[in-house]
């Protein structure tokens, strides 16, 4: 691999387009010093006629999926027909020049002279030619799998004076499907990251020794590109691209959605880094800036950054507009502080950072999400504005516990609708815990097959302060558990069986986790009752260690309640618990200190933990000595 920027297309002709035929299949006219690339171009005179220049491949071949690039010129544009009448046409012929299809690409009303690069996908061209146009067919329109000739045909109804050629065709290329038209490899000079300007320079349209016609800087300072670009090589070398504040736009040509795009690749043995913009801060506090923009007003473009061997692929402070599929599911990828406008989809599972991005006018439809991920936790402090369909689809493999940190959804539909903010398509139960301004009202959910979603408000704190008069009391045993109504187990009926010292509890949809504590009560066998630490064995089951050998199964009416606090107060007389509550939760409990002086009469605790605000409780204790 060289440190270079490479034209990835396949040339159809020599630099000077020598050896072209005219539109009848006969050898074309002479070389002409009028050229955009190389030393010459081929030319022909069209005056009060329709004719042109064709490249003859010699045999008909399968060129389906190819995009063609042709430099052409006309020095009498005012004498050409209009676009609608086919002033300039891109023509593809089969094994004979009498069987062809063509599309109209310019005319006296759209073209003012000078070499122009025409870019067109052959399949799109045939569809247009054989369809609604503008364009047409001659003889039998060949299939794109059997093409021998390609070139430009001019319709010049005006009388061109003198014996001077007026129609020119210069270098021509084709680009097979899924092939980058520009490859950016290695480092600039072997040491520096490449930039967009380096690519513009490598393809300099004003240099007859280059003039690729695939990228140029326009007069307004933006960079126009008409071919997919690949950064990096799967080899053991170092590859780097870094730039700021460049605005790149994809040309509106006759190519399909997904033809244009950016791909970054690497190799485990080498290094590949791709950075647009600047990053400030770390973690979830990071912000991005000066990333410039990549936009398209025509065909949708792809962004593929998920090669596992890429060391870093980072987009900071960018505007990404008109994209199709964006594949961002790799830990090496960071997308921070970007505006994502009118894009179709983004896969962000396990992305390193998808942080502080704004999704506007997503190109989605009812029931279709813009972002797909297996874990909403991958998305942080992002803002989604409704256009249509869902904001996020949760996919398999299912992640049972997820977080939505600071994500906002504006304008989305209600629960169960095809426009709900979240579409749980993970085929299982998912709990999404909200925090940092994320609200349950905005996190509306549509459930997919076999899916269920529990949206849990952000973590709040339940504080118990124990006082003797106004003096904090330390080392008071505080025990608080759920009761009454709420989202946690509160005196839920259970059944208990025992094997040895292990009691197994059947507790439907308990929602608890291993190491949680429960209060079991109501079993006729006292050994089953008490406060226990559980080990979860299933969504409906858990176990705990029981003493003795009580009868199995347990009799009576055993119930289970989640214990929220079980511990001793600190020197400030305080003990606290912070967790997310699915809804307001009734609680009850005791504050007791009865074994070392001063001892107190047990104090009762009751209240309701507000799922949004928590609950501060003060327990006054009375001495018992």
């Amino acid at each position, binding site marked *: 691999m060289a440190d270079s920027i490479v034209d990835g297309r396949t040339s159809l002709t020599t630099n000077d387009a020598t050896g072209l035929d005219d539109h009848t299949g006969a050898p074309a006219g002479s070389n002409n010093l009028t050229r955009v690339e190389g030393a010459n171009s081929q030319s022909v005179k069209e005056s009060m006629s329709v004719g042109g220049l064709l490249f003859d491949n010699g045999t008909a071949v399968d060129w389906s999926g190819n995009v063609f690039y042709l430099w052409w010129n006309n020095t009498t544009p005012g004498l050409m027909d209009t676009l609608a009448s086919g002033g300039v046409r891109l023509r593809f012929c089969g094994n004979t020049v009498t069987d062809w299809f063509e599309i109209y690409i310019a005319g006296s009303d759209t073209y003012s002279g000078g070499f122009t690069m025409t870019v067109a996908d052959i399949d799109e061209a045939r569809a247009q030619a054989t369809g609604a146009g503008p364009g047409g067919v001659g003889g039998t329109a060949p299939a794109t799998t059997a093409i021998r000739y390609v070139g430009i045909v001019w319709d010049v109804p005006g009388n061109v004076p003198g014996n001077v050629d007026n129609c020119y065709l210069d270098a021509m290329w084709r680009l097979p499907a899924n092939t980058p038209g520009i490859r950016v490899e290695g480092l600039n000079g072997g040491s520096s990251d490449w930039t967009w300007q380096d690519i513009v320079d490598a393809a300099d349209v004003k240099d007859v020794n280059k003039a690729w016609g695939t990228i140029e800087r326009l007069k307004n300072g933006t960079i126009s590109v008409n071919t997919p670009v690949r950064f990096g090589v799967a080899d053991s070398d170092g590859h780097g691209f870094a730039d700021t504040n460049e605005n790149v736009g994809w040309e509106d040509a006759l190519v399909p959605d997904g033809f244009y795009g950016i791909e970054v690749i690497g190799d485990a043995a080498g290094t590949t880094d791709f950075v647009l913009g600047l990053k400030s801060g770390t973690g979830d506090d990071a912000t991005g800036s000066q990333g410039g923009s990549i936009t398209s007003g025509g065909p949708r473009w792809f962004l593929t950054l998920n090669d596992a061997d890429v060391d870093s692929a980072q987009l900071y402070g960018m505007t990404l507009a008109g994209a199709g599929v964006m594949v961002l599911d790799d830990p090496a990828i960071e997308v921070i502080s970007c505006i994502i406008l009118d894009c179709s989809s983004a896969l962000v599972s396990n992305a390193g950072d998808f942080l502080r991005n704004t999704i506007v006018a997503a190109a989605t439809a009812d029931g279709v999400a813009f972002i797909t991920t297996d874990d909403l936790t991958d998305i942080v402090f992002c803002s989604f504005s409704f256009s249509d369909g869902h904001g996020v689809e949760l996919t398999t493999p299912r992640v049972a516990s997820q977080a939505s940190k600071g994500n906002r959804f504006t304008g989305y539909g209600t629960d169960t609708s095809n426009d709900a903010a979240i579409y749980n398509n993970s085929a299982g139960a998912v709990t999404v815990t909200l925090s940092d301004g994320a609200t349950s009202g905005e996190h509306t959910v549509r459930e997919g097959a076999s899916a269920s979603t529990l949206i849990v408000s952000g973590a709040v704190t339940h504080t118990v302060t124990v006082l003797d008069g106004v003096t904090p009391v330390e080392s008071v*045993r505080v*025990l608080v*558990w759920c009761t009454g109504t709420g989202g946690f187990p509160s005196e839920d009926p259970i059944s208990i069986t025992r094997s040895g010292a292990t009691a197994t509890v059947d507790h439907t949809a308990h929602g608890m986790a291993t190491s949680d504590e429960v*209060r079991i*009560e109501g*079993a*006729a*066998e*006292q050994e089953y*009752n*008490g*406060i226990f630490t559980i080990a979860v064995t299933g969504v409906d089951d858990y176990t705990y260690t029981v003493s003795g050998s009580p009868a199995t199964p347990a009799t*009576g009416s055993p119930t289970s309640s989640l214990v929220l606090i*079980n511990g001793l107060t600190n020197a400030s007389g305080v003990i606290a618990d912070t967790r997310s509550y699915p809804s307001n939760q009734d609680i009850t*409990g*005791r504050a*007791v*200190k*009865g*074994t070392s002086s001063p*001892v107190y*009469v*047990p104090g009762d605790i009751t209240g309701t933990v507000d799922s949004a605000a928590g609950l501060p409780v003060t327990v006054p204790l009375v001495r*018992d*000595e």
Partner: protein
Amino acid sequence: MAIDVDWVSGLITIPKADMSVVQVSPEIREFDVEQFHQDLRAIHASVQGAPYPRTHTHKAESVLSGVTYARIVEIIPPYTVEFEDDQYGVQAFGANHNLLDVKVANQVSLLVQNSAGLVRVNPWENPQAGNTEPDTMGELLDDAATKSRQAAALAASK
């Protein structure tokens, strides 16, 4: 063996061995009610005991006008107390209590030994003025006044 509380049935069991023998024949053992209170309090202060309703109330010793009044330990129903069954007597000390009210009937006889330092007598409860409720001083005074008026009226009619 220590005091045990069966939270399901509410039965508080006191082992015979926890009580010292003060008389061999017939066998009498003494039971420290204050220590009993402390033991129950410790049980309540444990993780396993804290969730359950209180077993008892306790009023510490208090000094009124130089006189020390005994502490009071009162077991709260539905809790009950059972002395380990056998043929012996239990002599309680250390506090006034209601053990006799909550004791499970068995072969054990309980010597309560409460000291009534202050006895509640209904006629002397307050307030008295204007109080003509039955069994109150107000009623007695009201009755006396009525009888006095009736006597005066009878004397005047003669």
